[in-house]
């Protein structure tokens, strides 16, 4: 397969999509610049207009526990990726067949590993904020 063989026409939709996306972005900026009102002032220049005044640097360190929570979240997040295909196919199984039990057992084993992860997180103190 060489590039010469490829029909570049077929890339046209991508190109159109690309231009459309870029054009949309550019058009918006240009339009704002053209027709948007411009009123400068002290209140206008704060980060969150009519919001809370940010104090201190935005590069403030977060407690590392946020990170741990994020990790735990990731575990459950990824788990769903596997649960979803399982759930969509499980309904199609003949409930009488031995496959059904096996499939149920497998997902339970899989969930059990998540429980171990949870147990580990608990022992590690991830869920304690103090």
């Amino acid at each position, binding site marked *: 397969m060489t590039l010469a063989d490829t029909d570049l026409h077929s890339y046209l*939709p991508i190109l159109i999509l690309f231009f459309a996306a870029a054009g949309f972005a550019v058009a918006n900026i240009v339009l704002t610049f053209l027709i948007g009102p411009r009123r400068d002032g002290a209140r206008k220049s704060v980060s969150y207009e009519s919001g809370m005044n940010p104090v201190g640097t935005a590069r403030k360190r977060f407690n590392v526990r946020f990170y741990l929570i994020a990790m735990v979240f*990731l575990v459950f997040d990824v788990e769903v990726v596997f649960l979803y295909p399982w759930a969509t196919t499980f309904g199609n199984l003949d409930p009488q067949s031995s496959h059904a039990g096996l499939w149920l057992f497998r997902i339970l084993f899989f969930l059990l590993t998540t429980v171990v992860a949870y147990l580990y997180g608990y022992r590690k103190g991830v869920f304690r904020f103090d």
Partner: protein
Amino acid sequence: MHALLADSTLTGGLLTLAQSDFPHALSTLTLNHYLFVSAAMFALGIIGFLTRRNLIIMFLCTELMFQAAGLALIAFGRYHLNFDGQSFVIFVLTIAAAEAAMALALVVLLFRRRESLDADLWAELKG
């Protein structure tokens, strides 16, 4: 099943994704297009990895490479009309998530030590 494979069209000319009910405008998109995008993503990932010094960006670049492979897998799966490619991608995503968790942990650790995310500050071991 492997009729498509048996003729060597894969290496040859233009391939149409074997699905008739795609919207018309997209149905001319062939496997080649997907592979091209995937290869481009992979190349961009490598280039980004080589040129950026920020650890997080570098990690994102490896993710880009992973997803490039994922895209190729999906396209191939569509082409071959089986689920292997798709299921592979789910697992790739899992691995990518695990790597992300580790990368973040590593980045936090390294940042604490050096107050910087510059990968090239770590060059004590050499020779």
